[in-house]
């Protein structure tokens, strides 16, 4: 009986796909209602982000960037989901989810400040509903339930969306976050970008569950497994999740994806835990390649168009790095000044000490 129940549940979580590896529509009924301009914009964003990722890796190697977690391979998963959001929706990202923040309105310059470990990287512009990239795996997930409840209490037509990886789905906070949001019928969307490795530990060693999406069942919320290399499927799934969230049912979206690069640029060597066969298997599923094929078949994309995006990305990245280089270095007094609204006496004294040190 119990065995049958589990099997029944697992069988229901089939991967949702619209666009296959050849760039052909395989699920016409689910095709989202996107204009030609919107489709082109999605492509532009993915191409731009791929170039940005390459530049970021190279800047990191030159010692000019700092902390960076590569994103190539995950563009559809990241950008397709963000594309379905309203400008005032909240994003609670993990440390790899910088592209969603940028396409939600944060400047590239600020993304680079975050990479460099400058406090101004977290200084969000007024009206931009973004939380700084979370470092503690899963901590953002329970905070998302809180933001979602806050939005509901304020009567807003907005949702809170959060991102984590397959490793994040092993954390207690993952379960608590889904459970709280479900219990409060809060407008939350939980995206798990399953790139199959939590740094080096494969997903099948992290859980006996066949899918991560099925974990939604225990929390009493919607769950869906999506082809994370298919930008249309990710977009459509998130759009539906957004609608359901506003009606009181949160959704867990598992996107099946792959990061081509290392976990971060801080010394991770993926050849220790992944084979080149696996890498090339995933490269065949590339989100940009398949979407390009699709758009070309609709006469919506050309080499010329792509080159324009590449050039624009390179120029803007160059300008953003220049702007970042011009930011004043941090002082200890900046740090002290950002601890409390009213400085306690110990920090007042330390502020005076450091002001004097820094004036020398």
């Amino acid at each position, binding site marked *: 009986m119990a065995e049958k129940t589990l099997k029944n549940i697992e069988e229901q979580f089939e991967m949702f796909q619209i666009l296959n590896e050849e760039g052909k529509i395989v699920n016409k009924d689910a095709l989202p209602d996107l204009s030609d301009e919107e489709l082109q914009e999605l492509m532009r964003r993915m191409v731009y982000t791929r170039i940005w990722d390459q530049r970021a890796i190279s800047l990191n190697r030159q010692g000019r960037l700092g902390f960076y977690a590569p994103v190539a391979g995950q563009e559809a998963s990241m950008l397709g989901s963000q594309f379905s959001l309203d400008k005032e929706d*909240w994003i609670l990202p993990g440390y790899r989810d910088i592209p969603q923040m940028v396409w939600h309105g944060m400047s590239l310059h600020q993304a680079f400040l975050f990479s460099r470990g400058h*406090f*101004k*990287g*977290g*200084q*969000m512009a007024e009206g931009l509903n973004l*939380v*700084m990239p979370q470092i*503690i795996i899963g*901590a953002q*997930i*329970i*905070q*998302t*339930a*809180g*933001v*979602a*409840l*806050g*939005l509901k*209490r*304020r009567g807003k037509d907005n949702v*809170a969306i959060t991102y984590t990886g397959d490793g994040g789905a092993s954390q*207690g*906070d993952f379960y*608590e*976050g889904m*459970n*709280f949001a479900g*219990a409060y019928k809060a407008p939350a969307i939980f995206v798990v970008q399953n790139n199959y490795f939590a740094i080096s530990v494969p997903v099948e060693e992290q859980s006996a569950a066949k899918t991560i999406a099925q974990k939604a069942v225990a929390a009493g919320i919607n769950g869906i497994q999506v082809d994370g290399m298919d930008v249309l499927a990710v977009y459509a799934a998130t759009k539906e999740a957004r609608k359901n969230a506003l009606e009181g049912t949160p959704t867990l979206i598992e996107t099946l994806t792959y990061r081509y690069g290392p976990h971060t640029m801080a010394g991770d060597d993926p050849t220790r835990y992944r084979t080149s066969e696996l890498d090339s298997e995933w490269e065949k599923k590339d989100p940009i390649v398949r979407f390009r094929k699709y758009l070309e078949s609709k006469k919506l994309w050309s080499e010329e168009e792509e080159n324009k995006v590449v050039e624009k990305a390179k120029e803007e990245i160059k300008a953003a790095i220049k702007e970042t280089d011009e930011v004043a270095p941090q002082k200890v007094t900046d*740090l002290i*000044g*950002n*601890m*409390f*609204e*009213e400085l*306690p*006496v*110990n*920090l007042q004294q330390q502020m005076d000490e450091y002001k004097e040190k820094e004036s020398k």
Partner: protein
Amino acid sequence: MAQMTMIQAITDAMRTELKNDENVLVFGEDVGKNGGVFRATEGLQDEFGEERVFDTPLAESGIGGLSIGLGLTGFRPVMEIQFFGFVFETMDAVVGQMARMRYRSGGHYNMPVTIRSPFGGGVKTPELHADSLEGLIAQSPGVRVVIPSTPYDAKGLLISSIRNNDPVVFLEHMKLYRSFREEVPEEEYTIDLDKADVKREGKDVTLIAYGAMVHTSLKAAEELSEEGIEAEVIDLRTISPIDIETILESVKKTNRAVVVQEAQKMAGIAASVAAAITDEAILHLEAPVLRVTAPDTVFPFAAAEDVWLPNETDVKERVKAVINF
């Protein structure tokens, strides 16, 4: 004015702020319909509704994360950790996340969260309920730790904590909840955070304490008075940051100090106070600064609490040691 116990004063403070500011939300395990396991939120859900005063699922980390999310959307959460021994479950939310929010956002976001929790020994709770873990939080930058010792202070300090735009861990000693009543104004008032209070004046020795140990120290002071020793008793009220100025003023007068804490000795508040006194006033001292603390064991099972917790005799012994040094 009304006669109130500390728990009544705490409820009154929350009622005052729920009335004053619609962004104040009170929540935690059993705080809604049940009114809290200590009845701290008694009647508040009836008065303010389920949207303002509500129960949470049983998950402390979740409660901490919920507070952060509500804080980000402009609310002023007053969350309860049912017993402070459960704080480990939500340490990341409190000291990893809330305490760093202002810095991480370059001052863009604040975290006006009040974390209320019963703590301290002497009421024979099951294990991992009563622990004196205030030092763990006090050691963490970015969060204040406030501990009242009287009903009057509890109301004024809790109102100030709720109005503060940074996280405050507000610890309520369980033994003091109903141990005595005193006059507490029905109208609203605040007491400054970060300020200690002289609870008894004296010229011969300064006793520095907080929470239930304020009363242990006051009792010891009364007994010492019969022997001709007049102890000044300072109630820290906020243990992070420590109001060193008030302490120094007293020590410069008495030239002797004993710091009393209920918690274990290692890396405690008393050590910080003793170090601050020697940093700033060593030439005023006639004797070393001594500490009264519990031993460095885990918090004991209920039946061993009475022999483990510091008491008036321990305080008197240390006072005599500094007097006769």
